[in-house]
């Protein structure tokens, strides 16, 4: 019975969502607002049980690691956001979390710049590698902002645009394909497993 109610609710909500394809309507609005509320409501107990209890409450109050009082207080400082006078206090926890960016400096230099540079330095011994090389260099120059795209230089950078567009086209095609297979899968399940229309 719970299950049946569940399936009916799910079906009803699915229809509400699909009704948006026809046009914006009260059913869609209802489902949309419900979705917003339920999903936020889902996060609160989830965070409480899976983050607050094991990482904050247990170590401080049960394991008696009193040093954790400090981050506990820093966490509370977030709440000053609601005071118009003291809202600057909430910058402290934000700043603490931002400390991580220090790692981003060398890490992104290493992982996304230097590693990519190495993979570009292959010997130019076949046409595809030469094309990749030209493509990458011209895209890099396309994103070089200190020189206007004019003359020969402009022509070269526009090669970059062409490469990018072909690349984007490929990922476009792939994404379209993936979305459609998702829909097909859904309809196969609906028609086959639920309604039994196809076998």
């Amino acid at each position, binding site marked *: 019975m719970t299950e049946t109610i569940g399936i009916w609710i799910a079906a009803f909500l699915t229809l509400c969502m699909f009704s948006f394809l026809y046009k914006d309507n009260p059913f869609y609005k209802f489902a949309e607002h419900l979705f917003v509320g339920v999903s936020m409501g889902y996060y609160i107990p989830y965070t409480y049980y899976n983050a607050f209890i094991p990482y904050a409450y247990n170590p401080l109050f049960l394991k008696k690691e009193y040093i954790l009082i400090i981050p506990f207080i820093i966490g509370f400082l977030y709440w000053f956001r609601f005071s118009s006078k003291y809202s600057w206090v909430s910058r402290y926890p934000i700043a603490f979390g931002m400390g991580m960016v220090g790692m981003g400096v060398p890490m992104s230099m290493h992982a996304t710049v230097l590693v990519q540079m190495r993979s570009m330095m292959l010997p130019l011994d076949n046409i595809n590698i030469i094309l990749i090389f030209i493509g990458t260099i011209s895209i890099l120059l396309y994103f070089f902002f200190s020189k206007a795209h004019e003359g020969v230089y402009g022509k070269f950078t526009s090669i970059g645009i062409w490469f990018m567009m072909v690349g984007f086209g490929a990922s476009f095609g792939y994404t379209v394909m*993936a979305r*459609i*297979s998702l829909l097909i899968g859904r309809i196969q399940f609906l028609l086959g497993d639920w309604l039994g*229309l196809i*076998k």
Partner: protein
Amino acid sequence: MKFADRIQKVDRRIIYVILLLAVVLPLVFRLGFKTYTTTPVEDLYRHIDAAAGKDDLAILMDFTHDPGVLPELYPMDLAILRHCFERNIKVFTISFLPQGAAIIQMALSEVKEDYPNIEANVDYCNFGFKPWSTKLPIMLGMGDDIAEAVETNSEGLKLENLPIMQNMKNYDNIQVVVEISGSSMGQFWVIYARAKFGVDVAVGLTAVMAADVYPYLQSGQFVGSLGGLKGAAEYEQLVDIFAMNGLEFSKKKARNMAWVEAQYEELPELAQLYKYNKARIGMDAQAIVHVLIIFFIILGNIGYFLDRRAQKKSM
């Protein structure tokens, strides 16, 4: 002028209905397009098929996927299992996701229905769900001793006491590891199992991920791959034309479309079941929708250009 206007102003709901029809109709009325098989899929089929009838070789299927990607991956699960049960190939199944365990159960019981002689723990063994954190110890440990690394099957039985394990020791007895997932899990198998123990690894992936495995296929780190519904459809076809007709794999024949057509004529009833054609039927729908969308793009743009020309003229 009027035509262009009309094209531009088609109600979107009509488009939605056309799309829906383009998906539903091919699913209900089978079109039966023949698939062209490709090398990565053939390679995987050949690799698995080479273990046919051997009791000291098995394939290991890793179902590390969740229900979200089932539409694309489930037909692969079924096709490979059917291939193995039909050709008497031993199968191990494992999953490092809790949801994967349920998928294994579902796939095994669905295929087993049609193969009453296939017995659990004799012809196949389901290792079940193993926690994500044990993934590395298990992958590495199987190089030494599968029974020791995996310990128990999904029913909690000790592996070394099971009949299927009598001739199985380590990766030497694993013909190929088939990783079916919507993530880059396959690369873990390459790094930890292939590089160290030389076991062959293949992957079944969602279409979006498929493009990322080309370098691995080219370097031979993956012996084969199934990419999305298309890969599954190709595998289904190979199982139909070879395994279901009791034939050994031959690439020459697989590429001969006339021969393939002929094989379809003599298929047993079992192969006609919807569940074993799911990927091919899905691919038919996919092909239709692709063509439809291309048609939409072209038509939409014709309208756009006519419109623009008209605007230019009027200026």
